[in-house]
């Protein structure tokens, strides 16, 4: 019985998926489907608090319910609910039979939550595939233009290659240890007398496979094309939940199997972090397409996050590193959702090609102050300006890196942040241009749900930025 309570969020999501499926079978109605999907995602989020009473508890051989997994479950289900509401008006204009979209969105969220729970390589793979397979279909969902299809095929083929690499890595680890469970892997690697070469190669392959999903440099080539082609709300979901879930499980794998024992491997993550921070920010400078700019900036943000792996090398700093990663993930998810949310609201009625060039937001402050306010807060938070969630997150990473005295990583972090301010503020500059300077500006009339949601997202970013103490207290108590 306790085990059912412990995985209540997963059960709620599965139940929600079934309910949506049955509802579509009997009655096609987008609004109803969206309501059922949003409610089931919110219920799943609420059930995390209920499940917390039983934590920590190992469920079956595959899942572990503890505060770490439940915290991220709340984050992913809330992000899923936000994406649902954002998508409602958008998807009606972009594809016929829009109902299945919400079913796939619930399933993708379920995959992300399984990743948060995973303590076994099998559940890692299943969760990852559930997340990615749903995302392939979601990316290609709008069937009135061909760009999403191209994006989905790119993602599918490259992601398949990444999964194959991942599986090869699993096989190598299993060959040396004979187990797939994270913590058992840790003890088995301790006692293994087969030398470090084979398990290290396996762990490196797993790292490469997951780094592809995280789009860390040098595995980032797909990112801008896929983000550009995918429907805007899905780009937001992919950039926030899609990455955060993979990062969560990667961190747990490294901690529980203690892969930090392979110093070379951890140095590899440090190298990836530096490359991601520099390459992501430099490439973002050259973009005039906001979606592509956000794609490159998300690469840079993964770079900032990967710093914590190097910090974790030193046992005494591990707690602050994990705390920093958790806070950064939460801040990054809220911010990314807000930024892509604005693009969604702009493009609600664009059928053929989304309008995401810089000049399309020109004069937005004078036309749609609420939307422009959302974008401003999101961009300031991405840039890490004080009073926003992004600032606290970056500050956390910064102080973690200082306590680990990783000076090279710190230098890359500072240089990267410096570059990033330029291209974030360029968007703000375009938004403040006077409306009459730009004649072909598009008409905007976002629905009330979009406006309410943007206010909510602004509020959450500001609250996290101004009063982070309560969240920090929660984070401190889980680790």
């Amino acid at each position, binding site marked *: 019985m306790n085990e059912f309570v412990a995985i209540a969020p997963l059960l709620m999501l*599965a139940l929600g998926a079934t309910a949506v499926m049955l509802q579509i079978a009997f009655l096609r109605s987008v609004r109803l489907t969206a309501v059922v999907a949003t409610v089931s995602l919110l219920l799943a989020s609420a059930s995390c608090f209920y499940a917390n009473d039983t934590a920590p508890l190992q469920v*079956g051989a595959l899942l572990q319910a503890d505060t770490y997994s439940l915290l991220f479950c709340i984050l992913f289900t809330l992000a899923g609910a936000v994406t649902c509401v954002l998508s409602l008006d958008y998807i009606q204009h972009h594809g*016929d039979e829009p109902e299945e979209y919400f079913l796939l969105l619930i399933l*993708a969220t379920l995959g992300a939550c399984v990743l948060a729970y995973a303590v076994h390589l099998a559940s890692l793979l299943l969760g990852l595939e559930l997340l990615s*397979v749903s995302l392939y*279909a979601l990316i290609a969902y709008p069937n009135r233009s061909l760009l999403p299809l191209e994006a989905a095929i790119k993602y599918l083929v490259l992601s398949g290659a990444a999964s194959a690499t991942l599986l090869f890595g699993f096989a190598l680890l299993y060959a040396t240890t004979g187990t797939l469970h994270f913590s058992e892997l840790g003890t088995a690697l301790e006692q293994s007398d087969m030398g470090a070469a084979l398990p290290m190669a396996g762990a490196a392959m797993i790292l490469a496979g997951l780094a592809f999903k995280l789009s860390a440099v040098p595995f980032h080539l797909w990112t801008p094309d896929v983000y550009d082609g995918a429907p805007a709300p899905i780009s937001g979901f992919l950039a926030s939940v899609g990455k955060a879930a993979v990062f969560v499980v990667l961190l747990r794998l490294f901690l529980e199997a203690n892969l930090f024992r392979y110093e070379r491997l951890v140095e590899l993550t440090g190298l990836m972090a530096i490359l991601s921070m520099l390459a992501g920010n430099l490439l973002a400078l050259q973009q005039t397409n906001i979606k592509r700019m956000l794609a490159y900036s998300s690469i840079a943000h993964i770079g900032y996050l990967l710093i914590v792996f190097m910090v974790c090398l030193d046992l005494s700093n591990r707690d602050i590193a994990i705390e920093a990663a958790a806070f950064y993930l939460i801040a990054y998810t809220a911010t990314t959702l807000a930024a892509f949310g604005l693009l969604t609201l702009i493009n609600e009625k664009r059928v053929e090609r989304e309008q995401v060039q810089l000049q399309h937001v020109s004069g937005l402050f004078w036309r749609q102050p609420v939307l422009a306010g959302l974008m401003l807060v999101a961009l300031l938070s991405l840039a890490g300006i004080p009073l926003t969630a992004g600032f606290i997150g970056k500050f956390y990473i910064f102080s973690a890196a200082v306590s680990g005295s990783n000076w090279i990583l710190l230098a890359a972090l500072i240089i990267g942040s410096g570059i990033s301010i330029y291209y974030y503020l360029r968007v703000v500059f375009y938004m403040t241009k006077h409306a009459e300077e730009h004649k072909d500006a598009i008409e905007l009339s976002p629905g009330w749900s979009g406006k309410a949601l943007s206010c909510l997202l602004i509020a959450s970013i500001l609250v996290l930025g101004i009063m982070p103490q309560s969240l920090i207290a929660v984070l401190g108590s889980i680790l």
Partner: protein
Amino acid sequence: MLATLFYIAALIALTSTMAALTRANAAHALIYLIVSLLAVAVMFFLMGAPFAAALEVVIYAGAIMVLFVFVIMMLNLGDTGEDREREWLAGRNWFVPGAMAALLLIEMLMVLGDFQGVTSGNAVSPKAVGIRLFGPYLLAVEIASMLLLSSLVGAYHLGRRFIVRRGEH
């Protein structure tokens, strides 16, 4: 002797996979891929995992690959398609994969009687697999069913795009 047989099967797996990668013709490539999967199945069998070998044959070589071949062949309808198919059946095209498959069959027949695996591990019976799947790994089965649901819905929606398109034009 078992080790020799194992290495022969491994060699067949490697060469047929290489051949599958380098064939320009999709149907020929698929035939080589089937041979490669059969060779892997024989390797599993020789290593003392008959159940894994059976699954490899039934699921990969049997269900998935044969379905692929059917679809590829069905795409070539009409006179030109018939000519092309006749050309596919020319002797030089089926002799090599046929010989490889025959070699694998001979290997199987040689070891079929009293048989001990090459490795020291224990053979896993289907029953043991079933008990594990519906015991500690029950949730994996459930999550996999959700995975199938999402791919089914996704495939339905993506496939629908082309049906609707064709109707419109």
